[in-house]
Every structure is written in structure tokens, then in C-alpha cells.
């Protein structure tokens, strides 16, 4: 089928502001949007800049806005987004990030926020047995959060980020929750200053925009609310039952 892609372009060396270019291509309805973009890049316009790698939704490289919604280009089929009225499919970079070029955005701040929540297992106790024992139920408690691929779709979709760019953002809180809910982790208090700070979990207003766009279908808003409740509970009885002995 013939489709038109309307792609937002911006080259910092030659352009002062972004503008749209149109490309007509022939694709199968079951082709990925990434296939369409690569066809354009390889056969029509080598200057088109985008990130990609695994091409099946696990590496997180190609998050972008497709018809206004944050998606992974490799996990979106043409038939999922093409209209019946032959309107072009609109492709734009993620919002609330500086644009580096075309569909590539600068994720430095995103990764700084990710690092700030100490996204690693905190537990200095020597391991008594070969592995730390964890029941299947305890393992399930943080299963959802382990799905995150740090693609930053949630960041772009979050309406709070527009008014408060300092907000820690959904992905970083998911990454914190992944450890707070892990029975082996004892890092609640070390993470508290960031999470409980003015730009930690509290700016979230439950818009659910992150949850709606997450390509991994993580219940992000739920995890943020769980984290808020954990902090409140800790305030009621500091030092108690927080998976933390320090």
C-alpha cells in the first residue's frame, strides 16, 4: 500500500527551527513504522536521523511520537496507525527533550534522573547461602517494574513535565520502585531524599498518560502511587518495616 509519512526534521547545522518533510513509500500493512523509516533513510533520504537497534521492542532506542502518541517505531505496525482517509502518518521526536537532530533527542537529563534514584540493589549483608532466598510471591511483587527499557516514552507523555521540568519523572520512579519492592533490597532510606523531595514522587498528579503510552505496558501510575504510600507509611513510623535495617 502507498502511505505518506510526515516527518519532523531539524538539523542543528542548517536549520533554525523544525519543519515537516513528506515522503511517499510503498509498504505492507504489517510492516513496522521502523521499516518504513529505514526504507526512507536507505532509498530516499540518507540525511534522516533516528536511533534504532533491536527492531522488536526490547532495546528502547526508537521511542518517538507517531500520530501524536509516544510509541516505539519497531513495535508499531503501519496498519495500527494508518487512517482510512489516506492522511499522512505524522512522525515527531519525543517532547520535553532537546532535539539533537530530526527524531533524535538528548536523553542526558533523563539518564541523570534515572541515576539519581540509585538504581542498583542496595544490600551489603554477606550472602549466607549461594543465592539469596526469595519466594515466587516476593519475586512477583516487583515483576512489572523490571520490564522497563528506559525508552523515555513516559517522560515525553507526562503533562507534569511540561510545567515542572525538574520532576523526577515516571521512568526513574519505576526504577526506584523496582528495588523498593524487591525483598532483597535495603535501600529505602538512601533513596528517600530524592523520592520524597519536592521534585520526587509528589508532583505526579495521576494523569495516567505514562501508563497509557508505556510500550511495555507497565502500570506506571500505580507504581508511583505505591511509592507515595510507602513514603507516607514510613513517615508514620520511621525505621519500621521498610525493608531497611539501617
Amino acid at each position, binding site marked *: 500500500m502507498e502511505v505518506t509519512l510526515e516527518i519532523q526534521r531539524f538539523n542543528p547545522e542548517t536549520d533554525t527551527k523544525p519543519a515537516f518533510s513528506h515522503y511517499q513509500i510503498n509498504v505492507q500493512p504489517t510492516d513496522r513504522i521502523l521499516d518504513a523509516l529505514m526504507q526512507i533513510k536507505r532509498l530516499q533520504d540518507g*540525511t534522516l536521523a533516528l536511533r534504532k537497534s533491536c527492531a522488536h521492542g526490547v532495546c528502547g532506542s526508537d521511542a518517538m511520537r507517531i500520530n501524536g502518541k509516544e510509541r516505539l517505531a519497531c513495535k508499531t505496525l503501519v496498519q495500527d496507525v494508518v487512517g482510512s482517509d489516506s492522511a499522512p502518518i505524522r512522525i515527531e521526536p519525543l517532547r520535553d527533550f532537546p532535539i539533537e537532530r530530526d527524531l533524535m533527542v538528548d536523553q542526558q537529563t533523563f539518564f541523570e534522573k534515572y541515576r539519581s534514584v540509585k538504581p542498583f540493589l542496595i544490600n551489603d549483608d554477606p550472602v549466607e547461602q549461594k543465592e539469596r532466598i526469595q519466594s515466587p510471591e516476593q*519475586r512477583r511483587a516487583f515483576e512489572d517494574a523490571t520490564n522497563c527499557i528506559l525508552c523515555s516514552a513516559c517522560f515525553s507523555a507526562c503533562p507534569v513535565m511540561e510545567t515542572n521540568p525538574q520532576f523526577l519523572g515516571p521512568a526513574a520512579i519505576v526504577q526506584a520502585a523496582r528495588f523498593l519492592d524487591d525483598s532483597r533490597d535495603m535501600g529505602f532510606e538512601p533513596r528517600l531524599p530524592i523520592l520524597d523531595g519536592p521534585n520526587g514522587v509528589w508532583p505526579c498528579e495521576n494523569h495516567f498518560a505514562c501508563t497509557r503510552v508505556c510500550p511495555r505496558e507497565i502500570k506506571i501510575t500505580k507504581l508511583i502511587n505505591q511509592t507515595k504510600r510507602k513514603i507516607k507509611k514510613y513517615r508514620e513510623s520511621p525505621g519500621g518495616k521498610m525493608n531497611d535495617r539501617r
Partner: protein
Amino acid sequence: MIHEFDAVVVGAGGAGLYAALETSSKAKTAVVSKLYPIRSHTGAAQGGIGAALGNVEEDKPEWHAFDTVKGGDYLVDQSAAIILAEEAVQAVYDLENRGLPFNRTPDGKIDQRRFGGHTRNFGETAVRRSCYAADRTGHMILQTLYQQCIKNNVSFFDEFQVIDVMLDGRRCGGVVAVELATGDVHVFRAKAVLFATGGFGRMFKITSNAYANTGDGPAVLARRGVPLEDMEFFQFHPTGIRGMGILITEGVRGEGGVLRNNAGERFMERYAPTLLDLAPRDMVSRAILTEIKAGKGIRGDRQIDDYVLLDATLLGKEVIQAKLPEIAGFCKTYLGLDPAEQPMPVQPTAHYAMGGIPTDVRGRVVADGEGDMYQGLYAAGECACVSVHGANRLGTNSLVDLIVFGRRAGRHMADFVRQVDLLSLGEEASASKERIAELTDGKRGSHGAEIRETMEAVMMEKVGIYRNDKQMTRAVDRLQELRQDYRDVRMQDTSKRFNTELLEILELGNLLYLSLITAESARNRKESRGAHSREDYPERDDANWLKHTLTWLAGDVIRIGYKPVDISIWKPKPRKY
């Protein structure tokens, strides 16, 4: 710009990150990677990491090592296989202790499941050896290692594409890389360099591999005269999504899924009566292609792009949700089906390079068949060839390889850099700058897409699962022509900043290089062994071919040599399952 480090790690997948964790605490270390580390292809590994923990039934590292040797059709270096299997056990505990969320048994230990070619007591029956985290074990490994790198403040140079290695005879002095953000060429001087750049499945049309899997490390080294080992052995995974190549983990069959032809027959009963659908991958891929050629594919037209069905409906929704959720997601997204209700259309997909940069068990790069070594030059992971995979890798052993040999290489490098000084090699970056300048010299040329498509098709059709001299000779000739055509490729994109076209063109050059070496190595090996199946030489020939291939490419001419196989433990036997 010039940087100076003790150790440089090229590539930030499982092997690179593990090595960096080992060296960074003891030596000034940089990780140079063309992707953000968490985008690396280790993250796509699904089914598990093999280790004889014995958590759910009796198991021994010795059985794991034997399975590895037999799975590799006796081209595995046996002492290395023992190291792999023995150190796998502690490696898995280390990963767990560092936070990796493995699935658990009811009593809270790491759970284990069956996987192809892994058996108890030297082949009696399938054993539960694969330690897994749902069907995204690689994702969890990559995340865990990256988390540890953050904790330990490892220095990263993200989106730097390595384009040259600095060698002075057999001593390595660093690498040259181009920075995507600026287009600038950087020199990284180092006392030791580890290449951990992953695989090169993108030379084939149907592949499970990421766009990034273009063999940059092996190609960069080969251009500087470093040999490559056993390049003829490329694994086709039996179950890729039809037409797309996206991997459907062997874990589906490990949990009880079966392959069926167009008559609904469980055809593996005829090919591997004991292990059935859990026979090694090379055998299952050949069985599928044999069925297809006999008109028993689902379309029944005997074309190589026909397919068979992978039936997981008998597993039930609960097992699929708990143990194979990613697969269910892929099926929903790309096929519009639920594997709990409908079988999946699958065909073999180019998956894993057994061959690569030759190394010893400490990750040091081997210079020839006589045991001479490079100094300060290391390789680990899929780009390396220890060889623990021989002629065919067993499922789960790639992740074991990354962790065990990534760690070993890292440890050895940390010691090595204390004993030597930095080399000064003069105009290190000039060749790289010239190469980039050539691509933007203003001449008009193709931008490579047709060359890439032809290469992928040639490799798929002529150097695929079944091979013969006539087809491979055609492939070699065609690939030589494509390499000529490649000289006329020019960039459309003349910007310096974020010029992704430059990377694509450099990657294509690397793939062409490795395709030619693969085709020529395959044409040279006149026997069938593991993943290398010749219609004109259908039998394994230990008398003449129980040896590793080494290849050197000088200009357009490939020179071939050999290296002995370590068979010090188990005598080669016919391979039956």
C-alpha cells in the same frame, strides 16, 4: 581529541560491562560503545543462562561441559568448556547477589528449566539447567550489569563508533573512534583494549539480530591483520517469526511446545528420537528445512521461505503468562495471535556467530596457529571465539560465555595494565580521517542500500543452512563484486553532527568484509559439522577437518590456516540425540 586510559572496553553488552566492572576498580577504564549501554543486544536474549546449580534436579558442571562439547560437534576446545561450565555456577550466583531477578522455585531458589541439548549423565535425557528470568533473561542481565556500572562509577563514552585499532606489531596501543554527536575522530590510547562488540547476523536477510550487530570488532581487527577463527560456523535458530526473524525462544520448547509440519505431525520424532524438539539448534533447523523441501511446510511449495508451526497451545495461558510473557507480546504485536490459542508460524533465523576473534581462556587474542599471542589485545562475548561453542552453540551458553569470559578477560587486563606503559604510535587517527573524508569527497555514488540488500540475499540463499561448492563459489564472486561497488558509495548526508548515515556505511563495509570471510571459510571446509552442512560433503570428517580454521584477509585475497582443537577429555563420537 586524544584520551589516555589503562584499559578500554569496546562494546557495552554483557561481556563488555562485566569486564569493565572487573577492571574499573583497579585500573582507569573507559567503555566505548556505539549504543547507549542498555540498548545492547544482550538485552534481547530470552530463554536463560545455563549453569549446573542442581536446584530442581541433580546436575553437574561436567555434564554441562560434555553437552557443550557434543553440541558443538567436537570442535569445542574441551578445557575451555570445563571452565565455562564450572565457572557458570558462581557466575549465576554473582548475578543473583547483584540483584538479578531470576524466577524462583517454591522454596525460593533460582528456578531452572530445560533447554536444547542440555542433558543429564552424558545424554540420557533433558535436564533442567537454564536459570531464567521469565523470557527476558538477557534484559535482566544487561540491566543488572549496567546498574552495577552506575554503582561503581564506570566511565562511558556513549555513541562512539570504533573504526580502527592501533597495533605496533603484536602489541595493542588503543583504538580510534568517531563520535556520533560531533563527527569528531577521537584517539583512545590504552595499555589494553577489549573488543566485546557482539555478533554480525545482519549479513543475512532473515535474522534475529539487531541493526547494531554488524561485527565492527572482528572487521576492524581483521583489517589490521588479526586472524578470525571458524567463521564458517553461523547458527540459524530454528524458531524465528516467519518473514521477520524475530526470535521465539527455545524456552517455548523447553516448557513443552512442539514443532509441527503441514500434516500436524511432530516431525522431530523422526530426527531426534530422544531429545525430540530439544535437540541442538543446528539439527532442528536442518529438520525444518528438510520438511520444507519435502513439501511439508505449511504452504507446501518447497520454497526456502516456507515455514512450520510452533505449537504452545498445550502449555495453557497461565504458564505462558508466567514464563513466556515476552513471546506472547511479540505474537500479539507482530502476528496478531495468542500463542495459548494458536500455533506460531516460524522459520529458521540467522542468530549467532560461533566464530570470531580467536582468544585463549583469558580473553587474550591469538595471533596464529602456533600459539603466539597479541599483547594488550583482548576479546570476549559473541565477537570472540574461545572456542566454547565449536561448530554449534547450545542455547543458554551465549549468556554463560559473556559472563564467564567477560569476567576472565577483565581480570587479566586489570593485572596486565599494571605491568606495561602506554605506547605512543604517532599519527594514530590519520587513516580513519582519510576513510571518512573519502566518503564525503563530493563525488556522487550510491548510498549502499542495494549493496546491503544483495549481500543479505546472497548470504541467506547461498551460505545459509545447507551449502554446496557451486553456490558458495557464486557467493564469493558476488561478494567480491559488491566490495568493488562499495568503493563508490558516498554519503548524502554531509553534516558532521549526528550523521547516522556515516555509521550505516561504515557498518556495511564491516559486514561485507565478514560476509566474504564467512563464505570463503565455508567453501574451504569440505565436511559437514554442526551448523556447517554441505550437500556435497554430508559427513563429518575428523581425519581431515577436526581443526579450527583461521583466516587472514589481505586486500582481496583470503589466506587460510588452521589451529588444533583441544580434545583432551572426550574422544569425538558420532553425534546422536
